């Protein structure tokens, strides 16, 4: 099946099986190294990507659903200004996720910030999904709230 989509800003036309999971497409067809795991949909959370700006688990997205959509992996996201906000929040709070969950956690934070979900319960519910215990929930709340503040200031300066 031929599928047209945009991955990390590049318009691609892929010839792939229509039911192939996005996580495998990124690993095998795009050779994207930013995904850490392929858990077969057991919801470990390590394969998070942004699809049309929303965080999704790439192992739960079949190829036919990415047709015409824009996918952003951590590789593409790391170059954006939004990523710098979150990096600054890590530095400011002196809290940093471990290398295995860094990419996914950053993308989940981005999804929280873009949807204005900065309440403690929302952050904890979202982060609970990630099966990595390198950071405590209170630390995550601090990071997200710091990142939200940094982004708000950046937007205010720009305005």
């Amino acid at each position, binding site marked *: 099946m031929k599928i047209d989509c945009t991955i990390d800003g590049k318009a691609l036309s892929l010839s*792939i*099986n229509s039911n192939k999971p996005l996580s495998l497409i990124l690993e095998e067809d795009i050779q994207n190294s930013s995904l850490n795991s392929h858990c077969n949909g057991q919801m470990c959370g390590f394969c998070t990507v942004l699809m049309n700006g929303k965080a999704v*688990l790439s192992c739960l997205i079949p190829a036919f659903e990415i047709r015409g959509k824009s996918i952003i992996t951590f590789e593409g996201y790391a170059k954006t200004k939004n990523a710098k906000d979150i990096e600054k929040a890590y530095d400011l709070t002196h809290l940093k996720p471990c290398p295995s969950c860094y990419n996914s956690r950053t993308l989940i934070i981005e999804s929280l910030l873009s949807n204005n979900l900065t309440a403690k319960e929302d952050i904890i519910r979202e982060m609970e999904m990630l099966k990595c215990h390198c950071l405590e929930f209170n630390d995550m709340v601090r990071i997200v709230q710091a990142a939200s503040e940094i982004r708000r200031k950046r937007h205010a300066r720009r305005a």
Partner: protein
Amino acid sequence: MLEGLRSPNIHTPVNLSEFSSIIQHYPTSTYWAGGTYIMSRSDYYPSNTTNDEIIFLGSIEELHRFQRNDRIAEFGSMVSLYDLIYTGRSILPKILIENIQDIGGNIVTARMTLGGSLCTREFRSSLCGTLSLFDASCEVKYMKKKRMHSKWFPMISIYDKSGKLNLPDKALISRIRVNLMERNYQRFIRKGDFFLDQENSVSIAITGNPEQDNFNDARIAITYPNKGFISNHDLDNIFSSARFPLDQDESKSIEDAILSAVSAIFPSLSKLQKTRTRGIIKEIISDLNINALTTASFDEAKTNI
């Protein structure tokens, strides 16, 4: 593309009449709602047994509708659980919202659909049990003599006694209707991970109206992932007929009665599941005891005044 592996044909009907013509041409197609259950199966990809025809239900507009009045809320089966809690947060029973939030964060619930969570063979969520407490009903569309018929069924009747899905061939759940009845006491408790540790997990949803030493209109649903759910009048009556507060012996006899009723339907429950069921019931009884004692002391105080 893997050599020798056929890429399934994806059909994306945009309305139900298109869906019915596709299902007549390809009667053995797989219905695709959110995909969270299908894609989490270990044999999903690569697999030679994957169905060659997939009908993606996400584009059918009729299945995304949501309407309500004073008594009921009606949801299309392709409404995602995320949309369900955000559109229905102010009207839906509290326990239903708690149950959905317990399933996972927005990333997961945005992919899971209401119809999909009711129609999977394994119980990856305890939603069916919780919905049955509110006398939910489903509109089932099915093919008969090359024509599509539809009929409303009480939700409990689309599952057999052991909680397994019992729909006619080529049937599709199109709408789910929930009665908007609020009960004073609503509690949802889950122990164990429904996704990762199905053998040892259990969840219990209970609602009712505690009044002095009675627990009126008690409804209880117990869900065991990969086995099914149980919700019947015998279980409800165990709670309805009790007089609270209960002492330790009475409490134990209720736990035993519920466990024996559950074990009769699901004989292969694991030891941990049984222990967890007993623990949750103990927690609920203690909660109801506290409730009864506070109400009793409040009533006493009122009469003294």
